[in-house]
Structure formats: structure tokens, C-alpha cells
């Protein structure tokens, strides 16, 4: 099979300060093949792609294109060699015409001047190969993302022609547009291009790909024939679980959970998450499982009012609530620790004290400032209660370790005395010791009667503290596991879409 390989990467290593993003990854792409590249956040997919396209220089390993070793300096270099890339965010210029986008830098010229007629004629001819008949002199921005995507593919194939990398091209397309894109991908496949396809949608992986390569934590998990890989095994490869390993230790709290505190009915937003129903009881931990892009964060953002829902209602103990904005949600006793704490959570240059006082101050409004004494007392209390390790409360929070930053953000919300706290990946990127502390904290909060919604990719953790687990797939709530059903195996099965067990 080696002769049919168009692109071979062997032992790719890429190190960033403090992290090894890729650790000896092998990848082989054949001519006329659609090869899905899968992995959770931080698995190293995009780092691998960037090493192949020259956006990053690899630190070790070997890349061969048609048997010739290559080392692209930048994406342009890779393009000249024959590797074209199309991103989810269309990397074309919306203000230029379609034809200008297709021929930027290589416009046909006559007497030293660009010949627009000739350029438009060639652009039409090029797009005709994709069954697309559009006005090529109109600005790119006047077309839908799907059409822009096709134009980007047409440009990439025209410029490179050996390997096409599609980085989440379908993320913002609807079903019909995806079908159109897939038809084009199959055409290109038939022409002998090697196509790397990155997506979070399982249906699409099985619909279009010939082989699947899975990465996890910067390492290669394996490459399989799609037809011979059951979904369950794929999920296991991605999440890194040996099945049957853990059963739920105890389902003690289930009966203890109090009355329904919050009830959400038919909450949804087009293009983000399908309408779902959700009830949260007092003193209950609801886990939320699903792969990256399955709609977990979208659900949390709808609940907290970061995104406004198109449909649905929210009730608190029978009383209607409006969740139009995070401010409204905070006023109703909601709290939200977002997934990416570096971007959405901490304010790095402010002190631990200021970060902790932030949400409470925001709820009180600027008219009633917290006095310095109150802030000091607040900060000291939580630094002690949550065991936040910092030399003093005035230290800029960015100097703290990830686990302590996470605890400080938790403290920020706890200071507002929330009734309902949403934690998005609370244990990501923090060390094992801090992991256990955060989990203990979740359990003790719940014992005090707080309701929690915890999103996590760590299934063992979810199983350990959740009373119920909601499973999401392809932007839809697909299953709810209760009590004794909450096991990693059941979660994996629900994510994979086999044996939809619905207990309610």
C-alpha cells in the first residue's frame, strides 16, 4: 500500500513551552482517500495539520509528499508543494469579488493591466467544474458560507492539487449544504486527491471517510478502516477509556435530591442546539457528557443567557424567568464557570482578591461598591475555605497554577451565593491533586443544597459525582442516564449512538 500513499508523516514531534503537543505521531494519506482525523480538544489535531501545512515548523519527524521529503516553511510554501487547506472560518476576502479571490496574485494580465473579463471567464470555467454557476464579479460576502466554502475548495485544489485538508468545513452548514459539500469531496476523491477531513460530527465521519485516525493527548491512538470500526470503539479511542473499567461506586444521593428547582422547556437556538427539556433539582449534580462540538457548551451558554434562545421557557419553582443576559441569570442566582478560563474566566492582571470580588460586585451594581475591608474578608474567607494556594491575596491571578485559578473562579461565584452553578470543564488542564479537590468541592456544595450542572470530558469524574448524566450528540440531547445507569460504559454507548437508553 505504500506506493499509493500521497502524504506520509512519521514520528512528528512538536513541543511548545511547557507542553508536548505532538509526540511521535504517524499519519498516512492515500491517493483518492478521504481520511478523517479525530480527537478531542487538545488532542493535537490542529497542531498536526499546522505542521503539515507549514503554519508550524515541526520539531522532529519526517513528512513525505509523493515519496519526496518536504519541510514547508509556511502555508504558501505547502500550497506550492501541493497541500491546500480549507478552514471552517473561510479564509478568503469577503470584500473582493469571487473571481479576485480565486485568482488573487495570479490575475491574468494584458498590457500589464489586469484583464477582468478574462479573469471572470476563467473563474466561471473553474467553478463550472463544481457545478456552480454564480456571478463571479459579485463580492464574496454576498454568498452563503457553503458557497464560500466551495470557492475556497476550488481555489485550494486549483493551487495545490495533491492533498486537500478540510478543517471542520461543515461546522456552520445545514444538512443540504453538507450534502453538496460531500458531493464535491467525492468528485475530488475520484480525481485522485488525498483528502484529510476534520469534523466533530460522527454521522459525517461515517458517511464520507474511508479511514479514521484518532489522536489523543498528542499521541496517535490508531488508524482504522472506517467500515470496520464500530462507533463505540471509536468513542473509546477518542476518550481513552478501557470499557468495563469503572462502575458507579454508589448511587447514594439520588433519593436525597430535593424538589425540582429549575425547569427548562424546549430551550433551543437554531444552528447551536436543538430544543431540549431539562429539570434541575435542589442539591443535585447533573453531568453533561458528549464529544467536542456536541452542544455541551452551547447548552450552558443558553442556560446562562450568554446566547439568547430562539425558543423555550425557563421556570424557577413554577415562576417564569427571563434569561436574556448573563446579568439577568446572575440576578436569579445562577453562576457559570466557563470552559476556557484563560479567555472567559480570569482577568489575569487583577489580583486574586479582585477576581474573587468581581461577580458579587457586578451583582450589587456599581452604585454600592464593596469596601476594601469587605473584599479582603471575602477573599481571605475563600482562600482559606477552598485552599487556594497563593502567597497573598494581592498576587496577580495569572501567576497562580491552573487549579488555583479554577478555585478562585469558583470562589467568585460562591461569593454570590448561587442556587445553580454551571461548571464547564472544571478540571481541564489542572493537575491530579487539584482534580480531586475540585471534585470534593462539587460534592460538598451539592450536599449544602446547591444545584450543579457539570460539563466534563472526563467520564470517570462525571460518573463519580453525577446523580444524572445528560448525553449530547450532534447538537442534540440524546439520552439521560439516572442513578445506577450512570456508568462510563452507558455514557460511551449513548455518545456513540448505539442502544439509546432513555430513562426518565
Amino acid at each position, binding site marked *: 500500500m505504500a506506493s499509493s500513499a500521497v502524504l506520509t508523516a512519521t514520528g512528528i514531534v512538536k513541543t511548545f513551552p511547557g507542553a508536548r503537543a505532538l509526540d511521535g505521531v504517524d499519519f498516512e494519506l492515500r491517493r483518492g482517500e478521504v481520511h478523517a482525523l479525530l480527537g478531542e480538544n487538545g488532542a493535537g489535531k490542529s497542531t498536526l495539520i499546522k505542521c503539515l501545512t507549514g503554519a508550524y515548523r515541526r520539531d522532529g519527524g519526517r513528512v513525505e509528499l509523493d515519496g519526496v521529503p518536504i519541510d514547508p516553511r509556511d502555508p504558501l510554501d505547502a500550497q506550492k508543494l501541493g497541500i491546500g487547506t480549507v478552514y471552517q472560518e473561510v479564509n*478568503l*476576502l469577503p*470584500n473582493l469579488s469571487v473571481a*479576485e479571490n480565486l485568482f*488573487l496574485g495570479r490575475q491574468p494580465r494584458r498590457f*500589464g493591466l489586469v484583464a477582468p473579463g478574462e479573469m471572470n471567464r476563467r473563474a466561471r470555467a473553474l467553478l463550472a467544474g463544481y457545478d456552480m454557476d454564480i456571478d463571479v464579479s459579485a463580492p464574496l460576502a*454576498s454568498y452563503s458560507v457553503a458557497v464560500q466554502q466551495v470557492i475556497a475548495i476550488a481555489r485550494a485544489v486549483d493551487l495545490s492539487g495533491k492533498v486537500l485538508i478540510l478543517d471542520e468545513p461543515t461546522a*456552520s452548514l445545514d444538512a443540504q449544504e453538507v450534502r453538496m459539500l460531500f458531493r464535491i469531496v467525492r468528485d475530488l476523491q475520484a480525481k485522485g486527491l488525498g483528502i484529510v477531513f476534520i469534523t466533530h460530527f460522527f454521522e459525517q465521519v461515517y458517511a464520507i471517510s474511508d479511514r479514521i485516525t484518532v489522536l489523543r493527548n498528542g499521541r496517535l491512538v490508531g488508524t482504522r478502516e472506517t467500515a470496520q470500526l464500530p462507533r463505540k470503539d471509536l468513542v473509546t479511542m477518542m476518550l481513552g477509556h478501557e470499557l468495563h473499567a469503572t462502575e458507579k461506586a454508589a448511587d447514594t444521593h439520588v433519593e436525597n435530591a430535593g424538589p425540582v428547582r429549575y425547569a427548562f422547556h424546549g430551550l433551543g437556538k437554531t444552528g447551536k442546539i436543538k430544543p431540549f427539556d431539562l429539570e434541575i433539582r435542589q442539591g443535585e449534580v447533573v453531568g453533561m457528557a458528549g464529544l467536542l462540538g456536541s452542544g*455541551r*457548551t452551547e447548552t450552558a451558554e443558553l442556560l446562562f443567557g450568554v446566547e439568547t434562545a430562539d425558543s423555550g421557557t425557563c421556570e424557577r419553582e413554577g415562576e417564569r424567568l427571563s434569561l436574556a443576559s448573563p446579568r439577568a441569570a446572575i440576578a436569579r442566582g445562577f453562576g457559570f464557570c466557563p470552559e476556557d478560563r484563560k479567555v472567559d474566566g480570569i482577568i489575569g492582571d487583577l489580583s486574586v482578591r479582585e477576581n474573587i470580588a468581581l461577580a458579587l460586585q457586578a451583582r450589587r451594581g456599581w452604585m454600592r461598591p464593596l469596601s476594601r475591608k469587605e473584599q479582603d474578608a471575602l477573599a481571605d474567607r475563600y482562600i482559606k475555605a477552598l485552599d487556594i494556594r497563593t502567597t497573598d491575596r494581592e498576587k496577580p491571578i495569572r501567576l497562580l497554577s491552573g487549579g488555583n485559578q479554577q478555585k478562585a473562579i469558583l470562589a467568585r461565584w460562591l461569593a454570590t451565593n448561587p442556587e445553580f452553578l454551571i461548571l464547564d470543564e472544571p478540571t481541564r488542564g489542572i493537575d491530579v491533586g487539584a482534580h480531586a479537590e475540585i471534585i470534593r468541592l462539587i460534592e460538598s456544595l451539592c450536599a449544602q443544597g446547591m444545584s450543579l450542572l457539570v460539563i466534563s470530558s472526563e467520564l470517570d469524574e462525571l460518573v463519580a459525582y453525577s446523580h444524572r448524566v445528560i448525553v449530547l450528540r450532534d447538537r442534540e440531547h440524546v439520552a439521560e442516564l439516572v442513578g445506577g445507569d450512570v456508568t462510563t460504559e452507558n455514557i460511551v454507548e449513548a455518545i456513540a449512538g448505539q442502544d439509546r437508553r432513555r430513562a426518565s
Partner: protein
Amino acid sequence: MNAKTLPLYATLVIFVVAFALCAFQYPSMLSTRVIGNLLTDNAFLGIAAVGMTFVILSGGIDLSIGSVIAFTGVFLAVVLERTSIHPLFAFVLALAIATAFGAVMGAIIHFLEMPPFIVTLAGMFLARGMAFVLSIDSIPIRHPFYATLKSLYWVMPGGGRLTLIGGAMLVVFALGILIAQRTRFGTNVYALGGGAHTAALMGVPVGRTTIGIYALSGFVAGLSGIAYSLYTSAGYSLATVGVELDAIAAVVIGGTLLTGGAGFVGGTLIGVLIQGLIQTYITFDGTLSSWWTKILIGGLLFAFILLQKGILSLSRGGRALSVKGA
């Protein structure tokens, strides 16, 4: 008509309507004399505004041009007063200095990744300072060649005069339109305005283009300085203060998006003419304070920024927003 050309048409309509209103009130305004004067009086501003259009199309700004015009004027006056070189040679020298000045600013903006606002602000002070170093007085230019150049004009039907500098402005605009619409450099300027990062990924030589844009702006500012020295027959280091802002106003009223990427060089000509028209009207009226020019320009600018904002939000609304991954 689409979102791309709408501001241009809006400008054109405003100009035609305004001119019709003026002509209705003062029929004598509808003569080629007025038009000839309109072109001559605004020649230096128009020439400089061509360069500013390229800069703004690329998403940048050039605050130095008023100072460069003044410097060029003083430089010409001093050189012609103290040496015996021919004015044509002095023109070449002045253009070379102005172009190099712009190119250096472009290089700093690109290589040091500095905001154009700051770099050209420094350039503004530097050029003004250099003009003061040459002379703090207004120096008249009495070279006979200047008289010859000023006597060159084409009498239009109706007795209006298209002077050399008025004609030069029209030629510069024609060349500017050609460069913007029909060269790869021109497309690259639009590409930079559409998104410098994306443009770089698509193979636009960002450094070369950026330096080229500011060099071009410097060159036409030098040309504008020559036009201004012909217009006033003098060089004065305090002249043309704030012309860069008039030029920016002309570009924006001409329908170019201040954030870059959309607009037309031809629109800028109309923007300049609208400013000139308001001034001419005030001259005809005789009782209005000349500050009304500024007030009207301010109102127009504001209206155009609102128009652009409206168009932008309309065109954005049509495109699907990017979906944030979970």
C-alpha cells in the same frame, strides 16, 4: 447597485443635488469658470486625497500628508531661492524625498508591526519640524519657470480655465483609478483592507504592498506640495495644517469605508468636489462665515459614517455567523 457601490452613488447624488440647488439659487455658478476654479482651488487637496484613498482602502491612515505638503513647499522655495538648480530638478528631488519618507513609514508599520496612526503621527511632526528647520518664514518663489507653468491653462468653452494643477489633479485621479482597479497592486490593497492576515495566507506580499501604499501616499503628497507651491507661489512651514483631515473627510464622503477594503478612488474626487462646492457656495453667498464649510462637512461625514454602518450591518446580517465550538 449593491452594497459595494451604494456609498459611491450616494455621494454622486448628493453632489448633483447640491450643485443643482446652488445653481438654482445662483445661476452664475453653472459656468465653466466656477468649475475651473473649483478644480484649481482644490487641486492640492485632491491630489493628496488620492494617496489617502489607497491608504484607507488598505485599512491604514496617513496623518503625515499635510506636513509633507508643507515641507515640499518650503523645500522648493528654499532650494529655488538659495541655489540655481532648475525647478524641474527640484521637483524630482522633492518627490524623491516625499516618496522615501512614505516608504520608510510603511516599512516601520510593516516590520515593527506598529499601528499606522502612531507611525504617521510621528511622521507628521517630523515633516513639519523639518520644514521649520529649513525656514520659519514664508518664502516667495519668483523663478520665471513658475510663471511659465502658471500661465499654462486650457480655456474651456464658456471661458473657464483648466489650469495645469487642476488638470494634474484629474490626471492623478485617472491614474489612481487605473492602479486601484486594474493592477495586481490595486487588488492587493483591497485585499489588505479585507483582512491582512487572510491576505497573507492567500499569498499577498503584505510587506511590499504596505511599503508601496505609504510610498505612493508620500509621492502624491509630494506632488500635492508641488501643486500647492504653484498655487501660492510660496513656501511656508505653517501652511496646510490639517489637510490630512480634509483628505480623510473627502475619502470618507467619497464612499470609502474607513475600516478599509471597500471604496473607490473616483468617489474621493466627488468628495473633494463636494467640499469645494460648499466653499464656493459660501463665497457666492458672501454673508455666511467660512466656518459653515466645516460644519457642513462635519454633518456630511457623520451622515456617511452612519450610512456605512447601516450597510455594514445589513451585509453582515446576511452572512451566517461563525459557530463557536463547544
